[in-house]
């Protein structure tokens, strides 16, 4: 119906003012306008998430340092802060560029070119999604971060990790138990009930090496001791400068939840983008848009969506990985 609107029989009007009716004041088809306004509203959805992220982050005394959290890459690369996510960002930028090329070929009504660049864009989107899958797997499986647990945080004060002997000397009671089929040793403060929140562990790093005696300053980041053998996230014990024995605190829960939620929501957009790109690539190959004679407008609208996904990533990248 929309094709035979007022526009057709008043098309002869050559009035200077675009707002006088019978033509688009923005010289854009209704489909393109609708895509723009949908993207505007989607931007507000993401804004809702990112502003919530900001509010929660501002309400927390500490927040994990990104270049400490995101420092692994596939194939066993360790201590390479932000390198993998830079790769992911580049994948998305390149897929955006190939999308621009697809739109240009569409404008030229070059079917083969449009399909070629669309396929490259699909490959880019799929690569990004795979990278994200690896990143999530690493964070969940190896680092122990989940929507309810955040093993990354900052120290509020300076101190030194304690060894088992020092803990026993301080009057802590040593408990040896079996957890998930492996031995676990922890310490209870005097008169404390044996519940998970009261358990103090000797701090060990990722490889299981004891970190007793190591000193740290306020603001240093830390990762809660993670025991591969018994799958426990353990509060390491340390002595503050004023001589008090304390245990490490988990980082703000909200970090993990927000990270998985917002990157997941963005990933969902990438995923649906890949699905739509595939459909459109098939349609282009089938010659559907040639029949419509509108310069492959569907490819252009899809391009807007795909660039929007890239645009959102700019801000996700900013708030989660850079700041």
């Amino acid at each position, binding site marked *: 119906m929309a094709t035979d609107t007022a526009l057709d029989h008043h098309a002869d009007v050559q009035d200077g003012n675009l707002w006088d009716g019978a033509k688009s004041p923005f010289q*854009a088809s209704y489909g393109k306008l609708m895509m723009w306004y949908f993207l505007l509203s989607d931007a507000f959805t993401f804004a809702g998430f990112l502003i919530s992220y900001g*509010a929660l982050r*501002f309400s927390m005394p500490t927040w994990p340092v990104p270049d400490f959290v995101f420092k692994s890459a596939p194939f066993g690369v360790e201590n390479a802060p932000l390198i993998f996510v830079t790769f992911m960002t580049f994948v998305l*930028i390149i897929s955006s560029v190939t999308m621009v090329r697809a739109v240009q070929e569409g404008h030229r009504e070059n079917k083969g070119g449009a399909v070629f660049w669309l396929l490259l864009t699909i490959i880019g989107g799929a690569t990004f999604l795979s990278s994200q899958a690896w990143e999530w797997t690493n964070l969940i499986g190896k680092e122990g971060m989940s929507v309810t647990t955040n093993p990354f945080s900052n120290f509020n004060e300076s101190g030194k990790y304690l060894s088992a002997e020092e803990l026993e000397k301080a009057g802590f009671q040593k408990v040896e138990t079996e957890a998930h089929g492996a031995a676990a040793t922890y310490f209870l*403060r005097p008169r404390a009930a044996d519940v998970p929140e009261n358990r103090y562990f000797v701090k060990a790093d990722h490889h299981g090496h004891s970190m007793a005696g190591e000193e740290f300053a306020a603001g240093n980041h830390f990762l809660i001791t993670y025991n591969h053998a018994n799958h426990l996230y353990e509060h390491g014990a340390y002595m503050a400068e004023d001589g008090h024995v304390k245990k490490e605190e988990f980082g703000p829960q909200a970090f993990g939840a927000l990270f998985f939620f917002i990157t997941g929501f963005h990933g969902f957009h990438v995923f649906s983008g890949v699905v739509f790109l595939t459909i459109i690539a098939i349609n282009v190959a089938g010659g559907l848009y040639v029949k419509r004679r509108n310069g492959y407008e569907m490819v252009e609208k899809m391009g*807007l969506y795909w*660039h*929007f996904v890239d645009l959102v990533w700019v801000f996700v*990248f900013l708030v989660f*990985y850079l700041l």
Partner: protein
Amino acid sequence: MGHLEYSEAKKVVVKGLMILGVVTIAEVFVALFGNGHIIHGFYLHKIVFYPVMIGLSLYKAYFIVYEFMHMRYEVKGLAMSVLLPTLLLVWAIIAFFQEGTSWGKRRELIHQKDKETIHETQQPSETGMLDDDRTYQIQ
């Protein structure tokens, strides 16, 4: 609408790839540099670090919207009708962040007040230990 010629447009694409790539590398470099990964022990102050990061990201966003999404070649009204509403978020950001800060402060205050009552009602035992899980002395 002033669309570019095909050959020019192809150049813009390459230029876009370069610009976005360079800005991204710059961002990552500043992030690593500012957090002491490049010169050990050197940290950029937040007053410098945050604006640089946000500025670079906003430039990327501008570039994507104006070049890749062709906003530059659209009628100005369309650009305004999409971009101006996002200004509504400015006040939302101010208000939400202000709120977040105040939740944090209030939580801190409650924490302090909780400690105060413990000091009033409970005397330290001979070992100098309180039932508060933060205050154990090494003997």
